[in-house]
């Protein structure tokens, strides 16, 4: 039995009187894709924030590679190899797309693990940055990597968020709604991309509203409602769960009244 790379146990978080997370626990095996679903306001983003250090959990443990990371600042957690995308895409608008990747590549982790030499003069980092962007679907021949980030459409911005994570050479990426706001064709090209990341050995947590695409990708899914985990299992198991159906579609009694 392999060791879990990330294990979250009994994490609680309250904002004032609102219980955003109650006793949430799950384990994540290396190489898995874990889906996190739930209705709006069910605490998905708070869970992401609590794991990545952007908010501090009130109690509970987040063990990443044998180390409790609760209370560590976000940049230290990212330095360990656990990074995240943001739901609201705000790239570095004043820079061209490929220069956006120079920022994570300047971090200690990227310099430690990256395949490029320190110093980074003579444009060597720029080359690596463009390579990463090309891998993730920025067409080099039409100069998309060189365009200003402020002029890119949503589909590219979502990819740019992912590319910014990849430039850090992470082990876990937490994707906060990568599919939201994309057109059908953009989504269709995003699915193989996520599969490719999994093939490269990156463990993924995907917080999603788009269940159809998520269920094609995820090995396991956890369902949150009102801050608590109400179900866990393979996509099929989760969809058959009565509580999940109630959370998503309302209880059967409601329908019977209609």
């Amino acid at each position, binding site marked *: 039995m392999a060791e879990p790379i990330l294990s979250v146990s009994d994490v609680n978080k309250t904002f004032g009187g609102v219980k955003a997370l109650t006793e949430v626990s799950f384990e994540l095996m290396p190489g898995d894709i874990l889906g996190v679903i739930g209705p709006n306001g069910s605490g998905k983003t708070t869970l992401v924030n609590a794991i990545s250090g952007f908010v501090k959990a009130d109690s509970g443990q987040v063990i990443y590679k044998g180390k409790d990371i609760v209370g560590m600042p976000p940049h230290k957690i990212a330095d360990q190899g656990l990074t995240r995308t943001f739901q609201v895409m705000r790239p570095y608008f004043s820079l061209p797309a490929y220069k*956006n990747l120079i920022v*994570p590549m300047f971090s200690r982790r990227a310099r430690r693990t990256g395949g490029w030499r320190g110093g980074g003069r003579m444009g060597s980092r720029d080359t690596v940055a463009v390579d990463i962007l090309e891998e993730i679907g920025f067409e080099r021949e039409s100069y998309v990597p060189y365009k200003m980030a402020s002029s890119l459409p949503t589909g590219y911005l979502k990819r740019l968020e992912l590319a*910014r994570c990849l430039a850090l050479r992470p082990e876990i990426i937490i994707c906060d709604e990568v599919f939201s706001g994309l057109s059908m064709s953009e989504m269709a090209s995003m699915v193989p991309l996520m599969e490719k990341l999994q093939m490269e050995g990156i463990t993924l947590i995907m917080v999603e509203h788009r269940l159809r695409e998520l269920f094609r990708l995820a090995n396991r899914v956890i369902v949150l409602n009102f801050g608590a985990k109400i179900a866990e299992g393979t996509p099929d198991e989760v969809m058959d769960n009565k509580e999940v159906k109630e959370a998503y579609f309302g209880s059967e009694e409601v329908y019977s009244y209609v």
Partner: protein
Amino acid sequence: MAKQHEGRRRERLDRGIKVRSDGVYAVSSWREMMFLVGPRLLLIVGLLAMPLILGGVPYWQKVLTIICIYALLAIGFDFLAHYVGLVSLGGALYIGVGAYVSALLNTEFGVPIWASIPMATVLGGGICTLLLWPCLPLRGVYFAIVSLMFPLLAARFIEALDIFGGTDGIMGLDGFPNKWSEMYVLIICLLLALFGLRRLVNEDMGLVFRGVKDNDQAVKASGINITYYKAVGVFLASSLGCLGGAALAHIYMWAGISQFALDFSIIPIAATVVGGGGTLAGPVIGCLILVPVSELLRDFGTLRIAVYALILMAFIVFKSEGLMSYGARKYNQFEHWVEI
């Protein structure tokens, strides 16, 4: 950016020479090389020649040194505000700390002037950074308010505790050997700071600064300690201010609480508005205009504040991009009307 105008609009296109000098051809032609180097050369030669042009008028030579000190503050402000995302109103703090550190080193420890100014630059920058360190997580207007408080606080502190000479200040500093060294030291420092910062913001480290400005959350998620980089940014900007302050103290041969005056916080911002934010050279041009204007208006007493305010207002309303951005656009692009 084209303006709607009854069936036709104004179109802006890059000049041919601008496009050519972006490419490798620039090195093969004097014309393209001059196009690139010209404006920079104009600034460098212009500033270096200024003391000679003003040769006969000691009063305006004094004004020139003051311009340089304000310009050092202004490019520091522009760098912090437009490349690190910290709007700092602490210009007076930097000047005051630089002046006092240099004065103490010179009078108490007998450090000669050529060593006390560089030491005050580095030490003063360190002191300012330590003072502002707890405020670094603040953003936007909150950082501005807190940084504005520091110079006021420092002046009251010295006054109330009667330390460092109290309200009299520290007197008897060594002056510069002559007025030429006074001017040229400042002008050369200004040019080095300007081109150094220009270079830095396009290096990899500069990109991190600009990342912090655009989206600090994403920089944190990239495994970079943003507080550290903000501190480095504040250190660079405050060192420039302390350099100016130390020079000022040696020019007046005196350091006192009037060097915490709010002019040092406000004029750099006004100069940045006039010259164009985010251009680094713009604030220098802004200072070259604003400081002489305020000297010329000295006869009008308090009325000069009104004239000053009018200039600022006119710039904010009619040319909010600032002179430098406007000039660069005219230099690089031409406009013509096209039928729609």
